[in-house]
């Protein structure tokens, strides 16, 4: 009994130490920072992404959560410099990554970094590999592009990676084509490709959404293991809060192209401040406690041309008042934990209301 307690306490202490470490992100420790990112698609007035700030420290796992269409993927693509310049118009945004500063309005991440120091895993493993080339060649191509060296070296590295991501009989895989692999295997190949050049930042955009439920856990575990092993800073985009709880150090919640809340994972789960985050947390089914209907957030996300001024959540928010027509700034609740709501910190207001 006593020892149980001690263990729990110890775990708590460890968590909080890590949190503290993350709170005091040293300027040197910040691996990637995206500042005041705004983007619109051509032909639309409203910004799809409306002023988002993100930062990831070395070795940190940041989870970005939010509904489909809230701009998670677009942000990730913008970081990688993969947005088509024809349709996406970036009106503001500075990317600082590993000593390089990129003005996203005019430039994109240099191709030396793309696929090298910053790599990405996509949502669609079935279509993300080129059907015309062999698996081995596709990974080796990336290795050759960033590390140079001979074809044999690239091949060895490819083999090592295939082995590392747990593909059975990797030698045979080298010569296979994507259509000969299952979805889970293809995603393993994508992971091998992304990690082949030891990236400092790995972006995984819903890497398990398209996969069979039984495979999802394996793939996530693989990403987490490799991330820990190498201390890779990671951005994981997901809408699976279970995954977030398990893997994240920090969480960023997005709604309608705005960042509504961000903070250490424990605080986001235990003390959510933004009404949207609260709604999100309540929509998770729980095994313990009383059985009740799952809470849902009323209404649906307005289309981009119908987005309200100010706080974009106010059309669905139970607490909305006239002041919400003014956009609330991200305000610190505790150091490192911030929410973009006029009522933050929520407890004070609730207490007053009660």
């Amino acid at each position, binding site marked *: 009994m006593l020892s149980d307690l001690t263990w729990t306490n110890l775990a708590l202490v460890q968590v909080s130490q890590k949190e503290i470490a993350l709170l005091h992100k040293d300027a040197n420790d910040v691996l990637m920072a995206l500042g005041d990112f705004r983007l619109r698609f051509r032909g639309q007035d409203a910004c799809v992404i409306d002023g988002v700030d993100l930062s990831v420290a070395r070795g940190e796992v940041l989870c970005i959560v939010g509904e489909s269409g809230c701009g998670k993927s677009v942000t990730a693509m913008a970081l990688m410099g993969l947005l088509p310049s024809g349709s996406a118009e970036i009106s503001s945004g500075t990317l600082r990554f590993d000593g390089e500063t990129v003005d996203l309005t005019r430039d994109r991440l240099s191709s030396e970094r793309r696929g090298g120091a910053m790599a990405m895993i996509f949502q669609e493993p079935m279509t*993300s590999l080129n059907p015309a080339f062999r698996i081995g060649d596709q990974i080796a191509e990336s290795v050759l592009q960033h590390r140079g060296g001979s074809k044999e070296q690239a091949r060895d590295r490819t083999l090592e990676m295939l082995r590392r991501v747990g593909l059975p009989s990797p030698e045979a895989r080298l010569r296979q084509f994507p259509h000969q692999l299952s979805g889970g295997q293809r995603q393993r190949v994508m992971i091998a490709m992304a990690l082949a050049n030891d990236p400092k930042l790995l972006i995984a955009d819903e890497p398990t959404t398209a996969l069979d439920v039984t495979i999802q856990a394996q793939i996530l575990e693989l990403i987490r293991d490799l991330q820990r092993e190498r201390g890779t800073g990671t951005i994981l985009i997901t809408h699976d809060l279970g995954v977030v709880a398990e893997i994240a150090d920090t969480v960023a919640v997005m709604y309608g192209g705005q960042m509504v809340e961000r903070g250490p994972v424990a605080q986001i789960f235990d003390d959510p401040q933004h009404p949207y985050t609260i709604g999100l947390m309540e929509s998770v089914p729980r095994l313990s406690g009383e059985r009740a209907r799952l809470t849902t957030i009323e209404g649906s996300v307005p289309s981009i041309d119908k987005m309200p001024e100010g706080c974009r959540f106010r059309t669905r928010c139970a607490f909305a008042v006239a002041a919400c027509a003014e956009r609330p700034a991200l305000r610190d609740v505790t150091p490192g934990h911030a929410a973009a709501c006029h009522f933050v910190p929520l407890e004070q207001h609730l207490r007053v209301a009660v």
Partner: protein
Amino acid sequence: MLSFFLRRLLIAIPTIFLISIFVFGLQKLLPGDPLLVLAGEERDPAVLEFLREKYRLNDPIPVQYMTWAGNALRGDLGISLRTNQPVTELIAQKLPVTLQLAMMSLIFAVVIGVPAGILSAYRKGTMVDWVANVVALSGLSIPNFWLGIMLILLVSVKWQLLPASGYVPPGEDLWLSIKTMLMPAFVLGTALAATLMRHTRSAMLGVLTSDYVRTARAKGLSERKVVLKHAFRNALTPIVTMTALLFGELVAGAVLTEQIFTIPGFGKLVVDAVFNRDYAVVQGIVLVTAVGFIVMNLLADMAYVLLNPRLREA
């Protein structure tokens, strides 16, 4: 994969058989009697009967077909009613001329059409795309004979850069042969270049937005590699298939161009044979053309499989 090719070959045999029946039957249905052509002014029934007997036209039609098909299999397509030359020999003389013309047109069409298609797909919606499309549409719309005559007028008559007509075998003088063929090849190739450009464009457009092209970009590859290697490799299948099919059409479509530039090729042979009611020659030409088409189709099928790993490994 081998079994696929074998199957394909086996399917080609009944196709050729059917075509041969069609070609043979068509002759029987055509108005006019070859005998009257052969006999000329002679209308003596005895002579006609002699000729009928000589060419075995009194046999039942199936027997006639068997005789004809049997000979054709052995490479004997009969004798020209006009020149008394064996048809096979005539075709063997004229076909290489047209093949050279068709090859040069094809090279021209591929060299112009494919890069233009890639570029206009890559720069979709820009001025480059617009210009490429307008040029392609013009290429499709301008009639061959007009373009040919205008070129002769400008290039040969006015500037005197290239010969206006004729044919020089490549074995005799390769450079002169190519020079003589340059304008006809251009005229014959414009429509093909335009068609290829349109096909390349649409194939590339389909591929350029695909996820694996995004992956290629995410690897940090140069745009050149992304477009020419990762995208184009996947757009290649429809382009190659299309090219193989169009080549057959080129050979058949050379008729007009050969007339304009007075090239003694296959097309001219066809026209002369039709006007002269030279039945054996027409029959032979139609058969050879049809078989050519089937062969090109077969090649297109094979290319399709060879270019597609999914089918190749199966």
